[in-house]
């Protein structure tokens, strides 16, 4: 329980008044001389005990009246579990989906998967009535900005939760200072052992004839090893596990491999479950004609963005006249809508440039840096985050209380009830009357 007017508790000293009154005016049993006790029934202890109990009961009731009134004046606000999850609480969760989150945690689970589990539990929240939104972003700063914009439109209690491995450079104190003062900030760090090696699957290369080359990148602190694995599964039937597929015939395989390796040097496209699917189709790819005939116009913004960014790429722009590939279409590849970049039968260097440009624009440009194993220490993280987020301080809780909210009315009602009880108990203790007053006419 929070007291919005704690100074009112000084009034509790008034409880000393009924105690003093009780001690000074405690009813004493009068002694009455009587001719004989022969006819008096034996009811000694219960009577005396009844009056002693009545006195104490009266004292307790009077103290209770003062206590209830003081409690009410202190403007209590009961922060119950139901209220902690007050419908007015808005929670924005920022999930880091950057490349570093693909690393494995100490339990062997991918950091991103563990983060999603944490987000799921946060979304469930202490109360169903919590308003919660989750922002997934590879750039934490952008995610925080988006979450802040959402929280600006929310009412009542507001909370920002950031779930990340907090790679150095991913988030700085500057991104948090711009938040409104009443927004509580919490950080949920996904711990990834710094010295562990990370594995990442990169884009598979389909070289036609039912063969797919899958490169596996092992990122170590001092180097990156790439190992290629060939699988004999048609890319047309196997669901794409990678962002970029390269469709080529066996004669074009060397060029495709070389172009892909060139692309790795400038960017390392990593697997993202939500990453869009694109296919770079060499002129000799056996599936080209069928895919082209079945293709449709682009219909998603990222597709236009990617095409535009590739065409604007400096290397591509210098090698071509701005048209490195034919009109792109969207076609179903293994039941997945896929953006097709149809390479024209032209200079194979252009092909490599397109592949590299696609890789660069599809993934975060600083993917290598994202794989940097150095993360923000917990102590430093704690200094960045708002101190209010460490625990629900009294100030924060008080600010979270709606202006007119107070449970004092219940204690005023209790005080009134106790006043009635006091009057009832006091009436039962009628003073004795001298027998001379009772003389009959």
């Amino acid at each position, binding site marked *: 329980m929070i007291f919005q007017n704690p100074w009112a508790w000084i009034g509790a000293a008034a409880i000393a008044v009924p105690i003093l009154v009780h001690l000074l005016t405690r009813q004493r049993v*009068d*002694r009455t001389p*009587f001719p*004989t006790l022969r006819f*008096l029934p034996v*009811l*000694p202890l219960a009577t005396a005990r009844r009056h002693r109990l009545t006195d104490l009961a009266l004292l307790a009731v009077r103290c209770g009246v003062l206590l209830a009134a003081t409690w009410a004046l202190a403007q209590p606000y009961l922060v119950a579990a139901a209220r902690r999850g007050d419908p007015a609480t808005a929670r924005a969760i920022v999930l880091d989906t950057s490349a570093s989150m693909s690393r494995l945690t100490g339990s062997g689970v991918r950091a991103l998967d563990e983060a999603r589990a944490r987000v799921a539990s946060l979304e469930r929240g202490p109360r169903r009535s919590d308003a919660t939104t989750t922002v997934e972003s590879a750039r934490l700063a952008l995610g925080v900005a988006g979450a802040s914009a959402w929280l600006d439109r929310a009412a009542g209690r507001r909370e920002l939760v950031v779930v990340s491995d907090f790679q150095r450079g991913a988030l700085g104190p500057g991104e948090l200072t711009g938040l409104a003062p009443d927004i509580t900030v919490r950080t949920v760090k996904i711990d990834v052992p710094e010295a562990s090696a990370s594995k990442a699957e990169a884009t598979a290369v389909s070289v036609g004839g039912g063969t797919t080359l899958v490169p596996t990148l092992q990122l170590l602190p001092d180097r990156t090893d790439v190992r290629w694995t060939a699988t004999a599964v048609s890319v047309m039937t196997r669901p794409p596990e990678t962002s970029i597929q390269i469709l080529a015939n066996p004669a074009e395989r060397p060029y495709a491999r070389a172009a892909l390796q060139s692309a790795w040097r400038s960017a390392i496209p990593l697997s993202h479950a939500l990453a869009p699917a694109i296919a770079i189709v060499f002129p000799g790819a056996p599936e080209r004609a069928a895919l082209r005939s079945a293709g449709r116009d682009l219909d998603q913004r990222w597709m236009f963005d990617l095409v535009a960014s590739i065409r604007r790429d400096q290397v591509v722009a210098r090698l071509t006249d701005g048209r490195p590939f034919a009109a792109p279409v969207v076609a179903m590849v293994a039941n997945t809508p896929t953006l097709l970049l149809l390479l024209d039968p032209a200079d194979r260097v252009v092909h490599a440039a397109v592949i590299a440009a696609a890789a660069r624009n599809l993934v975060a440009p600083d993917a290598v840096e994202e794989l940097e194993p150095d993360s923000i220490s917990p102590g430093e993280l704690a200094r960045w985050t708002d101190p209010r987020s460490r625990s629900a301080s009294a100030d924060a809780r008080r600010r979270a209380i709606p202006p007119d909210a107070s449970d004092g009315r219940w204690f005023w009602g209790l005080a009134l009830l106790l006043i009635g009880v006091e009057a009832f108990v006091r009436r039962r203790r009628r003073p004795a009357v001298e027998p*001379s007053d009772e003389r009959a006419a």
Partner: protein
Amino acid sequence: MNVLDSSVVAAIDDLELAARLVVEGLRSGLHRSPFHGFSTEFSQHRPYQTGDDFRHLDWKLLARTDRLYSRQFRETTNMSVMIVLDSSRSMDFPNGGISKFRYGSILSAALAYLAVNGGDRAGLMTMAGRQLRFVPARGGRSHLRALLAQIERLSPDRTWEPARTIGRAADLLKRRGLVLVISDFYDAEDETLRELKRVRHRGHDVAMLHVMSRPELTFSFRGAREFEDLETGGTRMLDAPRAAADYRAAMETFLDRWARSARRDGIEYARMVTDEPPARALRAFLLSRRTP
């Protein structure tokens, strides 16, 4: 009949004056000694005259002589009345107003006054501490004053032995007289009743004036109280309203028991409450003595 309220009478310090006022209040209708009536001695026969009481006709003589004769009785003008006054502590109740002892004292004084002024003799027997105090039954105004003075010197003290006091009072009556006991009769009920019966069987008239106060009859106390026995000092704490019903029932049984026992054994019994004017109470008692 103008009778004075008991509180007024009790306020009169002079007991003789108070007694006289009481007697004057009850004298109407009492043309002759109230202590006489059926307690008389046969004197002689005389021829029946119109107006004679038929109860006094001697029927045996009528059968023998065929003539009507009335019996004449000699009034015992020097009837001895021994007043036994309870001066135990239980009589010193209630605190406010007229106590039973004061009321009894006034009754004693009034009865003595009535007796002596009616030509009878009056005496007093009481117990102070554990000692008997008595004034022999005599007549005359000087004796009356001495007797009243003795009553005035009395004050309730401790307990008493009613059987012993009553028995001694009867012993001091040289001839057949009236033993009049004024008490609340709380002490030694069985012994007291036995002694009263014994005195009755010895030929004396016995009368009980059972003096009670209104508060101990109604028990209208309120709240929790600690009652202290005036004679024993014992205490009992209880809730008076809760105890009232049981108390009144026990008191009623006590009073009824005495009344029945007295009637059964030929003892005159009168209950007198201290808030009743003494003259009225005495008058009722004395008139009831007339009725056989």
